[in-house]
């Protein structure tokens, strides 16, 4: 394979896997939210906020993908010539956010489903439910950080 293709595989993994993590996470929270809303429609706003939280992994994935695309010239000017090894470097750089985005999205969704159960009983404690979920997100942030640092390290 040419370098450019390998790098694009990296883009695909970052956006696709992290996005899947978000999709699954949001789906889990959504199910719980529907259960709550069917009894107590007034909590729609609160549940929507909670449901949005696992969306960040997908955004981080998109962000990493975008940075790579910009680097290799898919967005903007002309395609950059990449050696195979440079291509692999981009692929590797994409992996942290791809992997951690997938798992942290799912588990953040699970924590938030419990937070939905929490606000079903004590809506005033929503803040704490969010804090717990953010604990999970931390690792997606770190993965993104690793991805970004790796990307900046690649010289094309």
């Amino acid at each position, binding site marked *: 394979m040419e370098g450019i293709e390998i790098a694009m595989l990296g883009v695909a993994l970052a956006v696709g896997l992290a996005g899947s993590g978000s999709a699954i996470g949001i789906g889990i929270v959504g199910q719980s939210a529907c259960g709550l809303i069917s009894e107590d429609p007034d909590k729609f706003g609160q549940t929507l906020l909670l449901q949005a939280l696992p969306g960040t992994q997908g955004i981080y994935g998109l962000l990493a993908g975008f940075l790579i695309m910009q680097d290799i010239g898919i967005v903007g000017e002309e395609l950059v010539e990449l050696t195979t090894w440079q291509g692999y470097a981009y692929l590797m750089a994409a992996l942290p956010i791809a992997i951690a985005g997938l798992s942290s999205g799912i588990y953040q969704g699970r924590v938030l489903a419990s937070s939905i159960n929490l606000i079903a009983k004590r809506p005033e404690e929503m803040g704490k439910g969010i804090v717990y979920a953010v604990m999970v997100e931390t690792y997606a942030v770190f993965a993104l950080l690793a991805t970004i*640092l790796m990307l900046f390290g690649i010289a094309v």
Partner: protein
Amino acid sequence: MPIIDMKKVYILGHRQERTRVFNLLHKMGTVELLDVKSGEGWKEFQDLLEPEQLPDNISQIDSKRSDIRFCLDFFQRHFPIRKSMIEQFTGSRLDLTDEQFNSYIEALEQVEEIYKACREAEEDLVRIRNEETQSHNLIEDLQPWVPLDLPLEEVEEGSWTMMDLFIVPVEQYSALLEDLPETISEYCLDEVFSDEENVYFFFSALAEKKQAIDELFRGKAVSRASFPDVTGTPSDIIDSLNKKLEELAQERSAVLKEVEKLLVHRPMLMACYDYMDNEHAKHQAMANLAGTDNSFLLEGWAPVPIMDDLETTISENTETAVLTSREPEPDEDVPVLLHNKGPAEPYEVVTKLYSTPKRNELDPTPFMAPFFFLYFGICLSDAGYGILLGLLAFYLYRKLTLGESGRQLLKLLMLGGISAFAFGILLGGYFGDLIELPPLLFNPLEEPMTMLIAALAIGLFQVYFGMGLQAYRNIKGGKPLDALYDQGFWFIFLNGLILLVTGINPAGQWMAVVGGAGLVLTQGRSQSSVILKFFSGLLSLYNVTQYLSDVLSYSRLFALGLASVVIGMVVNSVGELAAGSIIGYVVLVIILIGGHFFNMIISTLSSYVHTSRLQYLEFFNKFFEGGGRSFQPLRVKNNYVDIVESEEN
């Protein structure tokens, strides 16, 4: 002093004035009442004091309150007030001026009438619903018999013949048909209808064979379908039932129309409910009194700054009541009221989400506030979003009537907007890269390592600051050695390590050795034996990983700051793809507005929560315990209405 000092207050007065005193306290909302009976100091007077019984009229209040509640619930069921998106967070209340509120309360006698009307309407609705279900059930039961063109009253036993309608499970039907001729010779079986489960049939035979037939039918689980109270053919009956259903529906809408007329009283009922609820709370609180035949005594906590005010209010408005106060004893359970002034005040909401400080602890709010302000700005770091967020929060702040924490949150967001605006200029973010201005400081996209190191440096500073606060607490608490052992040695050790690893200064290794030795020697000091002391001291060095991960955690500032800007850039690039034609520019504008708004909301949310997290886990755990009890005075609490200043003033 951010934690307000409290004093124990006692109010003693003539029994006749106790309601007046309670009304005053309730209105002022500044005294937290205690249960006198359970108070330690009153043991020796136990014989003198009569424990106060719940006032008799409490059950009247209770029943009135539940009447109003019923009416409001009834209205809500049939004519619901839906909450808007914002109200779902802030709660929806009715704004009333003092005069309006009082005029509603004067109309309290009307409640009984409204209650009766609601009750009657409810009963009507229930009756209508019951009749509807009956009709529906009957229609359902009759449905299979529609093909039967025979008035049901004619299906009856004669003296010579028996005839009736029967239902048999499908799986028994063929067996029934087989066995029938063996039992009797002459009969008429007419299958009317069949579905997946049952076969419905008309059957008639000679009456004298009835017993044999019953026997046979029982063996095949055949049941009789009887419609005792109706006349006509099944399809006629269904028609008339449908007509009845229509009438019932009309009747319901007539009842509901009547109810709708009652809706004008809703605000009045809301005001009365809150009034009754407060009366109830007040009366319940009166049970905390102690008293004799002619006097009453009340005990509670009040914040020191309002003491004078409280004293004059009591003495001016009553004839007999006197107030005394004393300083709290060291071991008393004193409630905590936070009071920060100026820009630190809104950050109380962050502290309270974690925990209320203990009474003799430092309130972390003012120490945390500047960091929060800074981090929020770094995470959002876009001048455009900053302006937008600030204006949005300001608008909501002006428009909504909110509780204390809601107001604080919006103020915090306004400050956050300012901070984000500043960092946007410093780091060059204006709606992503929509407006390309050179950064005042540097561009983190071009100099990521500078940004990362800056984030970690700020983190290290905050961690040291937290340690410093704990050292201060230790020294102030009379334990200066603890400050040296637990914070001083760590400070030396960590700095030594940093110098060593970065190779800035070779003196680092000596600092590390001195600090490390100090830690090994002191960290096991609570252990009993020398060996244990040494090993737990040695083991404590492992905590260096804790500090390391604390500081590394601040790298999120860099990642989040970059994320909000880069996503803004993504929005811009996607928009650019559309630009070109006229329609393209329209699409471009839509993408820009929608995309940037979305990014602003999401980035604000993650800036808020991640910044909070840094305070809670990396900063607070160095010096703050929390677990205090927050001050809960007896005060007016409303569920449905807010009393606002009348518009003239």
